[in-house]
């Protein structure tokens, strides 16, 4: 095919070309053809995202009882999907009445705030280092992907190996170097455990922010730096007046992605703290997960998870409005 591409015929508008060649060619206009291409993907998304999402919403308004097999149900393709009994806002009122819900919500906000700040600052800092020229730089970019490509289960147990009270490398080496006399129990105190979760999640996620920042830095014109240098700008001034303004859209993107990811974090809690000690690392997603799958209270559980979804929806809306609209008017 590549050979034919160099044919001397100038690229004509496609509509003309297909009609002229007629024959076997399927003359589909652009619109229906495009729909033919997107239909399978949209069908899958409807089946595995939209339908379960709607069903979850329904469940949050019912008295789900997984043991009950009778009661209202819909018959679809030979399967009997239980509908359970509509209870209105009961589940929502119940969770909003629970102090644990509100405590988890404020904790989630702290977690997300701390995570966003840490991941953005560390991600940007690492990007600034890796954007310099030094021997072995390509290798560094590969290493960047290592923390990010690990399963969060592995991330969790890896940090257990470092932070554990008894066999952790951190306590071991700090004592060895004489910087610490006893051992630090990172997971004993709730607030300390929460901050460990923030930092461990940051270790896993910040490299992705670095990737985005690096991509942004590489698209900054070299001339800008040259001009700044002619004007006598030092490193910090170049960063402040050239790099940072150019990175603004990416900075914004990183902030939003980190915020959403922060709200969703769940697996690390499972591996590291199980929400404890005394529920002091319980976030909204963990509370919803536990209510659903440890206590099998799907009604309140889905209600909690739906408030989380509402927050994410709000953020997506902001994301769309602020990023796509402001920085890419053509999209």
């Amino acid at each position, binding site marked *: 095919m590549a050979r034919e591409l160099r044919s001397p015929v100038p690229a004509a508008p496609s509509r003309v070309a297909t009609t002229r060649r007629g024959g076997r060619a399927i003359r589909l206009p652009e619109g229906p053809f495009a729909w033919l291409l997107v239909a399978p993907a949209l069908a899958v998304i409807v089946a595995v995202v939209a339908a379960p999402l709607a069903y979850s919403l329904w469940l949050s308004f019912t008295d789900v009882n997984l043991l009950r097999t009778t009661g209202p149900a819909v018959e679809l393709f030979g399967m009997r999907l239980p509908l359970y009994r509509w209870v209105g806002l009961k589940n929502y009122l119940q969770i909003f009445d629970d102090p644990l819900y509100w405590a988890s919500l404020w904790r989630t906000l702290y977690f997300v705030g701390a995570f966003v700040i840490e991941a953005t600052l560390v991600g940007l800092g690492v990007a600034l280092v890796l954007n310099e020229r030094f021997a072995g730089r390509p290798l560094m970019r590969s290493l960047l992907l290592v923390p990010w490509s690990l399963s969060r289960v592995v991330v969790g147990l890896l940090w257990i190996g470092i932070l554990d009270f008894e066999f952790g490398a951190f306590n071991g080496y700090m004592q060895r170097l004489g910087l610490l006399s006893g051992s630090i129990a990172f997971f004993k105190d709730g607030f300390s455990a929460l901050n460990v979760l923030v930092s461990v999640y940051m270790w896993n996620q910040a490299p992705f922010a670095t990737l985005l920042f690096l991509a942004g830095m590489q698209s900054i014109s070299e001339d800008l730096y040259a001009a700044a240098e002619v004007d006598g700008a030092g490193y910090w001034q170049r960063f402040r007046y050239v790099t940072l303004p150019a990175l603004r859209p990416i900075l914004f993107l990183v902030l939003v992605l980190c915020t959403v990811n922060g709200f969703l974090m769940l697996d690390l809690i499972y591996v590291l703290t199980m929400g404890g000690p005394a529920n002091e690392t319980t976030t909204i997603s963990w509370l919803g997960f536990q209510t659903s799958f440890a206590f099998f209270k799907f009604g309140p559980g889905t209600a909690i998870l739906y408030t989380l*979804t509402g927050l994410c929806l709000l953020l997506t809306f902001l994301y*769309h409005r602020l990023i796509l609209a402001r920085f*890419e008017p053509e999209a």
Partner: protein
Amino acid sequence: MATAMARPRSRPAGRRARSPQSRALLYALVAVVVLWLIGPFVWLFVTSVSYQRNLLSRPLPFVPPEVTLENYRMILGLVRFHAEGQAAKILPSMLNTFIVASVVTVVNLAVGTTAGYAYARFRFPLKTFSLFAVLFTRMLPTVVLIPAFFVIFRALGLQNTLTGLVLAYCSFTLPFTVWIMKAYFETVPADLDKSALVDGCNRFQAYYKVVLPVSGPGLVAGGAFTFMLCWNEFVVAQVLNTKPGTTTLPPVIAAMNGQVNVDYSVIAASGFLGALPAVLLVLIFQKYMVQGLTAGSVKG
């Protein structure tokens, strides 16, 4: 950002010769970054080839005094030990993970690539709306879908099956794949399809005979990313596939981690073994993945 993928890498800032101090500072910072990035993973490997008694010894030696493959022998079922029942699950669950991740990757590439192409090239009714719907699903917490999957799969008899996991995994991978492929196709010049049409291809032939063959990097990026996400997924598999022998690797590792009578060195061995395929995959394809992911994300 579309152009950044094709553009040769611009030179980094700081062209002048560095002063010795600034060079020393730079290399010190690089050393800190390296330690931070891979130190923990290297330590996981070190613990996985150590005996637990050496990890517990204080003062902790800087160089492990003994190196052993005993932990790996244990988890691969070559030696009998008290938690061998749990260890025996590792290889079968690894196979399950591989099957699920491969099938999801194939489905994603088959379905997501064509959609990405259409979004990158054509105008069609409801394009903005459906694209926004895809963006929305990308931001959706997967955990909110799990109760629904739980009840639906029970009704369909898909609980504790790999088919169920494949379906559930498509919910969080497909939106990403569509997005990555859309961003990739936006970097492939549209003149390519146009000249194919001029040369007598129909629209479909222009896509799969001309555009697709030059889209290797995009396919690799999307495929590797999907595979990685599936390989690492934990919560969905933990909840939906509870019957022994039906689950994937992360829940098995997490279960080992939860057992009090298993040495950390043995858990570390299972964690390192489980992490290795994804890490290698990402390192091998890192060039394409970085391009695909940054283009896909930066673009929107």
